Structures are given as structure tokens and as C-alpha cells.
């Protein structure tokens, strides 16, 4: 009985955080700010849902652990995709006017390319 209450609480927490991630994606105004909401809220949300499913399997069905695999995979890949999307924003100068300056001779890696290899952000992609 107590374990059911625990499962319900974790399920609701997971659904809530997944929803908050998407609400943030829709509500926030600048592209970089939008990056914050889904990459994290969703990972914790899906993590909680998987945890609830695992507890339920141990309590009511045959024990199962492979939810851990999905969880670990999501937690490892979320920062990498977030980093790639941030690089896209920097490359397309979406929010970049205020990038902090660096000491002379270095440049942020995404903007730093030899002049002949520089790829300008194309206007065609939308």
C-alpha cells in the first residue's frame, strides 16, 4: 500500500517536470534561454517515470533493471545534444552580441576558423 503511494508520487513528479520542460520551451523568449528548460526538466522527468516503472516491477511483477540503461543513456547524451544546439545558436549569431570577450589571440572555438574555411551562417535555413 505504502509502495503504491510512493509510485504514484514519483509518477506525478515525473509527469510534472516533463510538462514544465515543454512549457519552458514555449514560454521563454530568447533562444539560449529556451535551451535550459527541456534539456534538464525532461531528463529528470523521464528519469522519475523510469524509476516509478522500476519500483512497480519490483513490487508487483518480476524484478527488472533495464530501465537503468535508458536512464543512464539519457543522462549521458543530454549534455552533448544541449552543447551542440548551443553551438548552433552561437554559429548563427542568435544571441551572441553579448558574448564575453577573451584575451587577445584566442576566440570562442565555434567562431574560430581559418579565414578560408569560415562557413557563414546561411540565411536560407530556417
Amino acid at each position: 500500500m505504502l509502495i503504491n503511494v510512493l509510485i504514484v508520487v514519483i509518477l506525478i513528479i515525473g509527469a510534472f517536470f516533463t510538462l514544465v520542460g515543454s512549457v519552458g520551451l514555449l514560454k521563454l523568449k530568447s533562444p539560449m534561454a529556451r535551451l535550459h528548460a527541456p534539456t534538464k526538466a525532461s531528463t529528470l522527468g523521464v528519469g522519475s517515470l523510469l524509476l516509478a516503472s522500476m519500483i512497480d516491477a519490483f513490487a508487483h511483477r518480476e524484478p527488472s533493471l533495464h530501465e537503468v540503461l535508458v536512464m543512464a543513456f539519457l543522462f549521458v547524451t543530454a549534455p552533448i545534444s544541449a552543447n551542440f544546439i548551443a553551438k548552433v545558436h552561437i554559429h548563427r549569431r542568435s544571441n551572441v552580441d553579448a558574448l564575453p570577450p577573451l584575451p587577445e589571440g584566442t576566440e570562442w572555438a565555434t567562431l574560430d576558423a581559418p579565414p578560408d574555411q569560415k562557413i557563414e551562417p546561411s540565411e536560407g535555413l530556417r
Partner: protein
Amino acid sequence: MTRHIFKRLLPHPMLTLLLVVVWCLLNNTIGPGAIVFGAILGLVIPAVTAPYWPDRPSVPQPWGMLVYIFIVLWDIIVANVVVARIILFKSNADMKSAWVRIPLDLRKPEAITILAGTITLTPGTVSADLSSDGTELLVHALHAPDPDAVRDEIKSRYERRLKELFE
């Protein structure tokens, strides 16, 4: 000599262990069959892929790494609640997003990767870019009235621990 053979057979011991565990989890059983087949995969895959991966990355003390993982997991939970409050109850006009520049003391690529991943997973901050000489990290903070405080917290809470673990 024995050390040489050992290195030839098991170029990446942690990868072998990881493959056995992942195979058991995929099968969802911990029986002799799964462990033996996982061990075969764990021996063959590192041996076949070893030429593409010549250096063995140094593995820091497992115990310290475990403590670090639990600290980060706790921070993820706490900070998620904070960010959910910001998203739901703060108007867009009140939000003070800021770019933060973090000078790095870490030099090993593995340590910098773990630091950047930690910064992204703890909500409120996303690591966006590295300077071209790899000594500065660019971080975007969702709501930071005081960017210097964000920088100091990251440096004292995560980077100091990683420096102890890796160097």
C-alpha cells in the same frame, strides 16, 4: 611480461566491465549464460577497437567518483525545483540571463568533459563553448543577477573536486 600480455588481452578493463554489465541489463537477467556471453563480448570488442583508441584514459579513484556522482544527482534534483519555479512564476521581463566566462584550472580533456556535462545537467546553467586554446569555458545562465557568484560556485563546488580526483 605478464603485464604486457594483460595489456594486450584487456586494453580497456573498465570498458570490459561496462560491456558485461550492459549486456546483463539488456537481457534483464543475471544468469551464467548472460555473464559468459557478456564476457565474450567484453573481451572481443575492446580488442577489435583498440587500434582506434590507443591511450587508456586514467580512471580516477572509484570511491571519490561515486561521491561526486551522488553530489551531482542531489544538485540536479534541488536545482530542477528552482528552475521549475523560475519557469512557471517569473515573467520574461524579470529574467536576467547572462553569459558567464569560467577560467579553467583543469587541463585533462576527460576532466573538462565531465565538468561541462555537470554544468549542463545542473539546471540553470548550460555549458556552450570552449575557447580555442581550451583554457576558458563559456556558460549560459538562465537567471543570474550576479554572474560572478555563478562562476565562483561552479569553481568551488565542482571544479575543485574534479581537480582532486584527476590531478
